[in-house]
Every structure is written in structure tokens, then in C-alpha cells.
């Protein structure tokens, strides 16, 4: 695990609340197994086993006794932009729906394509630790931990837009179930 990722993963289980916006991808801890494989294309049984082990490590929240309230809002794009094609996208969406149904602290919502957005920001995560709050922003080769009040304020404001535009949880579930049917239809054709 890269060093710049460690503080984030260390904090996550202790946070009170986490709010994340994902415009184009699925975060590691919510990835379905074939999604991970499509992304990294491991070759040998050893490499594959290492990915499975790493995947378990990233999923610690699901076995935590006091997980944070976790809100994730996805742009519809995250599901279409799936590595490995529509079959993997279907696996990914079903996996996500399963997790959300099983864990009441996990709240998943979607902003469909047809909703117009002023601006689609790169992915970020608002981390509320109680004492130290920060915004986590990943780039291709590292991550930023923004804790200055004015930075946090900008992201808090953006988050307000995100939740205003997103479908409700129930609406998001229906939307994703419809998307699964649509992707499956495409595969049959």
C-alpha cells in the first residue's frame, strides 16, 4: 500500500462520518472481485491470491463493530466506465447493492447522467474525525490531505450540491437495478 494512502486507511475505521464523491470510478473497498481483476489483470495464481488478500485488507470496515456513517455518491459514469465491459459492470453494481442492503451504515446514492451539474469535480472524500476533519483528494501519483478551513468549506459547499442532485437512496437502488437490466440486455444482443 502506498504511503500517501496509509493515513486515510488508518483513519477510516475511526471516523464518525465519511462522505465521498466518485465521478468515474469505484473505490477499492467497494470493488467487486472481477472489477479488481479487470483493472489489474493479474496473471499467475500467486498474483491473483495477492490481490484477493489486499482486497480483504481494504474491506476491514465491513467487519468493524463501529463503522462510520458512510455516504457515497456516484456519478452514473462510474458504472459505465467499468474496466472489463458490461459483464463486470453488472457484477460491480450487484456487489454494491448487496453491500448497501447488508450494512445499514452504508448509504449509496447516484446522480444520473440526465441531471445537469454545474461542474463535475474530481473525486474527494470528506473525513470527519471529530477533532481533525480533512478532505482527502487523490491524484495519479499521490494524495492531498486538505485541512485548512477555506479548503474544507469549498468542498462542503460542493457536497451540498452533490446531495441535492442525487437520487434518494431508494431511488438510487431502483436506478441501479434498472441499469443492471439494461446492461444484461445489451449483453444478450
Amino acid at each position, binding site marked *: 500500500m502506498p504511503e500517501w494512502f496509509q493515513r486515510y486507511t488508518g483513519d477510516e475505521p475511526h471516523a464518525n462520518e465519511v462522505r465521498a464523491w466518485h465521478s468515474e470510478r469505484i473505490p477499492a473497498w467497494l470493488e467487486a*472481485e*472481477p472489477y479488481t*481483476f*479487470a483493472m489489474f*489483470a*493479474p*496473471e*499467475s*495464481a*500467486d498474483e*491473483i*491470491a495477492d*490481490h*484477493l*488478500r489486499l482486497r*480483504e485488507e481494504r474491506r476491514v470496515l465491513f467487519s468493524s463493530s463501529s463503522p462510520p456513517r458512510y455516504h457515497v455518491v456516484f456519478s452514473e459514469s462510474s458504472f459505465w466506465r467499468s474496466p*472489463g*465491459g458490461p*459483464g*463486470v459492470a*453488472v*457484477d460491480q453494481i*450487484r456487489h454494491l447493492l448487496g453491500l448497501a442492503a447488508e450494512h445499514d451504515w452504508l448509504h449509496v446514492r447516484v446522480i444520473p447522467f440526465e441531471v445537469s451539474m454545474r461542474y463535475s469535480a474530481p473525486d474527494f472524500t470528506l473525513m470527519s474525525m471529530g477533532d481533525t476533519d480533512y478532505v482527502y483528494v487523490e491524484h495519479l501519483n499521490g494524495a492531498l490531505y486538505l485541512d485548512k478551513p477555506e479548503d474544507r468549506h469549498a468542498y462542503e459547499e460542493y457536497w451540498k450540491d452533490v446531495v441535492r442532485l442525487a437520487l434518494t437512496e431508494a431511488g438510487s437502488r431502483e436506478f441501479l437495478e434498472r441499469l443492471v437490466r439494461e446492461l*444484461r440486455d445489451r*449483453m444478450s444482443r
Partner: protein
Amino acid sequence: MADSVRDEFPPHGVDLLNPSPARVYDFLLGGDYCYETDRRFGEQALRVFPKLRAVARANRLFLHRVVRYLLRRGVRQFVDIGAGLPTMGHTHQVADVFAPGESQVVYVDHEPVTVAHSRVLLDRDGDEKRHAAVHADLRDPDRLWQQVAATGVVDLDRPVAVLLIAVLHLRQLDSRGVDVGPRAVARYRELCRPGSYLAISHLTDEGVPIRAKLAAFAELAAVWRSKQEVEALFGDFELVEPGVTWTASWHPEETVRDAGFAVPGESAMWAGVGRKV
């Protein structure tokens, strides 16, 4: 799967586009290791042959009974070839319930994701001195045998049980397109010491017209062997009671109260255990 990959023994990489036998079987058993391609394939196959779930289940329960039967007969070493995904009880788990800490199990499969899952499961509830999962191909018996020996988990100079459960009906083609399954089994019979056992289960359409129903599924790549042909796979090994029979009829006293079959032939698989004398 690209043809160049198919020719590799064993294949590497993760094939996300085609159904895999290991994962389709997992789907039929109600496991959660399967992907969308496997689920689709499985659902289609179930539409034309709804008993397929019961067929898979009867086979898995046959495997469990074989393991306990062999333990009762003093066998402690297992080489599980075409072991598949750890759904509904893997061989070492069944063995450790019956005879805790006594047996050694080497899992072999040529599908790397399957091997990786067995390894991850063994991290959790295996014992590295007694269990291993090897990525090898049954079509290359001598190399497979070497790889199994190299784990140090089993001693191949002593009797072992070779399990070939629900794998030989998957077409075992060599680079010239010849099914080398029977030839490979003959080599395993030679390689193992007297006192060793061989357990086989194998799809057939002698009980019910499953072949005709599943004919449209080219991906299934199945060979349908008759009872005689399955018996021939045991060569000069002595078949234990009751000989080659339906999976559900092989020592049913233990687990098969109601397998869900109107007639045992619906289990669509021949099964037997032989001993090298």
C-alpha cells in the same frame, strides 16, 4: 479465451468474458464466487435442465462421502485434482471435521482464480504443513505429480487418494485436439503406490437425456461417458463396493436422504472409487 491461451498448460490470467466451469458449478451450488458470465450461463442451462442444481449438489455430497469413506479406511493423504472453488465444504474441511489434524490435502486446479481462492481460504483455516493449493494441469501428469511433491505436504512414496471429481467430463484436449483425459488417468494410476485410491465422478446421459438438452451449450465442452467407459478409467484398480454407480447411490446411507431425484439416474453422473492392489 484466446486459442493461444487455451494451449497453455495450465492457463494463466483471469478470463472475465467466458463462463468458467469452476464458477458455473459454484453458481449451481449457490456459492458466491461466480461472476455475471457464469450466472448467465448457469441460468440458461437451468432453464433447459432444471435438475442441474441437484446434480451439482449430489456430486459435491459424493465428494464429501468419499473423503470420509477413505479416512475410515485409513487414507490420510489426498491429491484433489480439479478441486474447484471452496463452496459447500472443501476437502480439507470435510477431512478435518472427521479426523481433526490427521490428514494432508493438496488441491490442484488449472484455473488460477480457483487456486488463489483455495490459497486464501487456507491462509485462514488451513495448516501450511498439511495443506497446499497448486496451479497445475491434469493433462500433464508427470509435471503435476512433481509440483504436488514439491509442496512437501504429501509423501508420494506412500499411498494417496487421487480425487478426480467432476473434472474428466470437461474435454481435456491436448494441442492436437485429442482428449487426453483417460491417458492422464492411466498415468496417475501408474504414479501412485499400491494401496492408493482413485475416486472419479463423471457426467453421463445414460440416466436422463441431459446431453440432448444441453447440446446448444458449446462452452460446456463436455464428454459424456458411459458406465463402461467410466469403469475403464479405473484400469486394474479394484473397485470398492458398490462399484461404479450414480453419485446419489454411492454409499447413500450417510447424507442422501432426499437428493431430489425421481430416479437415481437423474443425478446424471457416474461415480466410483478404486484401490490399487
